[in-house]
């Protein structure tokens, strides 16, 4: 029968081995390349970044990013380089300046305007709708006298 301390040792060794295995195949350079590549748009595939795209253009761009990182360029330098060559389109997130603010703030502005219009419209409906008239007396005088007479008879 397996002794408890031996079992604990085997489990610990397995955990250490599996934890090590998950980091062995990806270097710091790989991670940095992936992080930069995920911020750059694949210009031939429209909605994909160059990390996820399988196009030759994206592959070449990824290699270029990697080479630049190897040469010691920072992620900001690399993004600035591609921005200077391809314009804002190359970035997955448009930079927050100039007319790009419209892209960032536009949806919130439209939400606010829509909300204000909705509030105004609903408020208009509420104030314009007349209050319900009080119910008319369901019994006229002769009917009431007749009911009383029959009750007391």
């Amino acid at each position, binding site marked *: 029968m397996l002794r408890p301390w031996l079992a604990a040792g085997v489990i610990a060794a397995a955990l250490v081995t599996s934890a090590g295995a998950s980091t062995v195949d990806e270097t710091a350079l790989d991670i940095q390349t992936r992080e930069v590549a995920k911020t750059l748009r694949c210009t031939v595939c429209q909605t994909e970044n160059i990390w996820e795209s399988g196009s030759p*253009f994206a592959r070449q761009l990824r290699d270029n990013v990697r*080479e630049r990182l190897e040469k010691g360029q920072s992620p900001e330098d690399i993004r600035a380089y*591609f921005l200077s060559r391809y314009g804002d389109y190359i970035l997955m997130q448009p930079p927050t300046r100039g007319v790009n603010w419209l892209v960032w703030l536009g949806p919130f502005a439209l939400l606010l305007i829509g909300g204000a219009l909705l509030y105004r419209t609903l408020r208009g409906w509420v104030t314009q709708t007349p209050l319900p008239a009080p119910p008319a007396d369901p019994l006229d005088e002769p009917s009431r006298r007749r009911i009383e007479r029959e009750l007391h008879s």
Partner: protein
Amino acid sequence: MTRGWQIALIVGLLGLFALFYQGLWGNPRLIPTVLIGTPAPAFAGPAVGADGTVSLEQFRGKVVMLNFWASWCLECRLEHQNLLAINERFGRDPNFVMLGVNYQDQEADALAYLRTYGSNFAHVRDVKGAISFDYGVYGVPETFVVDQQGVIRCKTIGPIIGTVYAEYTQRLLPGLLQGGTEAVTC
């Protein structure tokens, strides 16, 4: 609602419709260039089918027409005879040079292409895509025209055919060869 707010709302809605129109019916592949009016990036690379290197520096002071192409590119075939005709006509001017940049291609395929369709100008291999990235190229064919001061004056995405060809041969290249700069762009 005041009249001012009504006008602002209508203008905003028209703006939205314009965005939707551009998004739905515009050409999503067309990325506006940011390089017009900027210095042409220097480059050097191995010549296609020849020894030695080809560099932009060799042609300083000339109008340079830089055409990015590949043997697998069907649209490049459409424009190829026009490129040969342009070089045939303007290549006589000592201030003009046409250069081909072979993009994402194998040299053997590029040479076979040039043997099939002909060539009367030099070509450089863009081995790792560095030249293409420097010029913001994302597909082929793309053509740049650099003036005698080394400034990019024109970028054309797609083949040099039809009205584009006419524009190049009748206005752009003659204007730049006569020393035109700012006024001669495409």
